[in-house]
């Protein structure tokens, strides 16, 4: 007997552990991937924890990329390794990154040439003072604007070709002014000596709309190769990937979660804050609407006696059976008629008219509150509204919590509603924003997609942990009293 019980316990725990592992795995995998760099996110065989790989190069510890790590490597297993490097050229005392122009690279077996052609990225800058603006051949209104927008600011400038009808005076050029982030400000003729040339050293400048390139031929000995940590992959200008094969013993690794992935995924989602605001706005309104209206209706169906009450409650239950697709088309047509499509209204207004499921849940709860409590108040001449607000609602707090919680989760998780009714990106909810982010990137930056998913999932999980008891009781109520 005793041995049989022990065996049962072992079997129970084994099954529980395996089951819990299987059920938790996808979520754990999501969070782990969210913390990885892109190459480890898509590695096969997968790396389970986010790592940083290092090797020794010229006495320096350099972070490298290990994309295809063989399974169970021995010390002498050859491992393909990638390094991020960059060629630099000294220009007037400043070290400027350059690109080797295609064809300058020596082919295998061909002796290296002494001279190579390189590409440099630069942009021009200018600061306009009051005198410079006064001297411009533009009307007073435009001068006024120019003072407001451009005066005293050190701005990037791109020289554009002047049209032949109205050319700027000799020694002047037509200059397009930009902000540093690349947004175009204004086009205006300026005296050429005002422009300064600045060589670009970071990736954002090299890719900016105001930047230009020039070619130079230089001696190979003038070039300097600089190595960057692998985490800067695709974030530095004119990157050159060096592939080498190293024995596994030359590599070492540390566990390094990339928390910056969350910030990057927020940036890449473009309007994360707007999505979050819209979602919270809808959650707030639907929760308030559902709780107030469903509680009122449930009160009418449970604490008041009137002819036909139970028959009508049967109708409440029956409406729960109607599948949403049946109502979907006319509701869309109705909201379209009202001009609500492309606004958030279709997603919250209906919730102020009581949901059948919530009415059912609250009615069950209200019926458990003893009649005597309200009878006494009624005899004292209390109005029904006061009984509802001051006696029933405080007593029903746990049930109202359940309804609020379910509604919050339902609104946060809803996809079909927003997908049908919302048109503009400014109105999107997090669920729509997440899908848009994924489909726009064609599913390559998996680490960022998983980071964004984690951001969407985490609030519901935290809320669940905080309210676990209420939640589980709420669901149990659905089944047992149904």
């Amino acid at each position, binding site marked *: 007997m005793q041995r049989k019980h022990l065996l049962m316990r072992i079997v129970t725990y084994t099954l529980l552990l395996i089951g819990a592992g299987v059920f938790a795995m996808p979520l754990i995998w999501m969070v782990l991937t969210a913390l990885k760099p892109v190459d480890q996110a898509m590695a096969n065989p997968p790396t389970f924890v986010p790592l940083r790989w290092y090797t020794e190069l010229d006495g320096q510890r350099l972070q490298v990329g290990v994309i295809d790590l063989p399974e169970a490597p021995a010390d002498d297993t050859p491992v393909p390794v990638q390094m991020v490097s960059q060629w630099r050229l000294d220009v007037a005392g400043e070290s400027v990154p350059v690109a080797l122009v295609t064809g300058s690279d020596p082919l295998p077996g061909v002796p290296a040439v002494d001279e190579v052609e390189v590409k440099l990225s630069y942009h021009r800058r200018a600061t306009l003072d009051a005198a410079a603006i006064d001297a411009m051949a533009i009307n007073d209104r435009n001068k006024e604007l120019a003072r407001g927008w451009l005066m005293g600011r050190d701005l990037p400038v791109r020289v554009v070709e002047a049209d032949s009808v109205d050319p700027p005076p000799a020694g002047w050029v037509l200059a397009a002014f930009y902000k540093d982030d690349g947004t175009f400000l204004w086009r205006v003729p300026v005296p050429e000596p005002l422009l300064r040339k600045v060589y670009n050293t970071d990736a954002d400048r090299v890719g900016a709309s105001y930047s230009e390139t020039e070619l130079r031929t230089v001696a190979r000995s003038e070039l300097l190769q600089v190595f960057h940590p692998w985490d800067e992959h695709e974030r530095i200008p004119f990157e050159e990937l060096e592939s080498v094969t190293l024995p596994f013993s030359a590599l070492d690794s540390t566990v390094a979660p990339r928390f910056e992935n969350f910030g990057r995924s927020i940036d890449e989602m473009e309007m994360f804050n707007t999505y979050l605001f819209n979602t919270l706005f809808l959650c707030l309104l639907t929760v308030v609407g559902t709780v107030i209206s469903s509680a009122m*209706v449930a009160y*009418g169906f449970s604490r008041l006696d009137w002819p036909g009450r139970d028959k009508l409650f049967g109708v409440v239950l029956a409406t729960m059976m109607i*599948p949403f697709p049946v109502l979907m088309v006319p509701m869309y047509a*109705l909201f379209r008629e009202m001009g609500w499509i492309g606004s958030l209204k279709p997603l919250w207004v209906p919730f102020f008219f009581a949901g059948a499921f919530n009415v059912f849940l609250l009615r069950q709860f209200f019926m458990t509150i003893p009649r005597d409590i309200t009878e006494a108040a009624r005899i004292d001449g209390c109005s029904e509204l006061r009984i509802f607000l001051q006696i029933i609602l405080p007593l029903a707090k746990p049930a109202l919590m359940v309804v609020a919680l379910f509604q919050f989760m339902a609104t946060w998780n809803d996809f079909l509603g927003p997908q049908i009714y919302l048109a503009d990106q400014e109105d999107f909810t997090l669920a729509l924003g997440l899908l848009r982010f994924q489909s726009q990137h064609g599913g390559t930056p998996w680490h960022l997609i998983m980071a964004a998913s984690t951001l969407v999932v985490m609030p519901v999980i935290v809320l669940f942990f905080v309210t676990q008891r209420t939640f589980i009781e709420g669901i149990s109520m659905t089944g047992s009293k149904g």
Partner: protein
Amino acid sequence: MMRMPRKETLTALMFISPWLIGLAVFTLYPLAASLYYSFTDFDVLSKPVWIGGGNYADMARDSVFWQSLYNTLFYAAFAIPLGLILSLLVAVLLNQAAKGQSVFRTLFFLPSIVPLVAVSMIWMFVFNGDFGLLNYLLTPVFDAVNGVLGTEYQPPNWLVASHLTKPTLILAGLWQIGGTVIIFLASLQDVPRSLYESAELDGANPAHRLWHITVPIISPVIYFNLIIGIINAMQIFVTPFILMPDGGTDRSALMYTVYLYDNAFRFNQMGYASAMAWVMFLIIVVLTWGATRLSRKHIYYAGA
């Protein structure tokens, strides 16, 4: 004497007025309109044009419609029973006296509250044919099978291979049985302990006890979950919509609601979509009725 009940009726009407308005505007009107649209040619932009049973006749000839119906019934035929069985077994497991049950309960339930869009993102990644976690975990299984049989099977591309898209959706759906598990668990806690104890004295093994005691006693809850299962399975939308856009390879995962959505909001055939919605409603009613008929004999009501 007559005034009292009338006053109470008026008060009650005031209390239920939100629902009455909602019923009229967001249920009865759409219901009637949808039925009317289903007999019209309607593109939202212009007024609906009466075409009688044209949409229903078109449906009978539309092979894509039949494909989507087949896919959905296929999905339901596996997802509903597998979901019920698995969630009952998990509930029984969670009902055993063991340390840390609240932690286990949480782990089994957590997937059910995750937004379906995020769930789809996770599946897209996990089921990926090239670097997905699932195929990595299956590699040793395939190696073992190939070693024994001398074959060269490779882990498949779950989201693309047309014979695997529906099984993938079924598997993915099984991950989110948490709600059903909790409902089962609550009902299991109401089963009197004494029944198990006397059965154990009679020498019944755990499988016997499950089949002959637990299942009959909680049969009303099984029935409840079955009905919910039918309604949900027939309306599966988000995961196929995202994981297998446009129905996936050879429309192998084009689900009924996805095709309905496409007709309504991509092809602007609102009349046809409404007709499809009513056919779906009818199918759900028939399936529910069938389930009720079948289970009536087997449901045990403690009170009755």
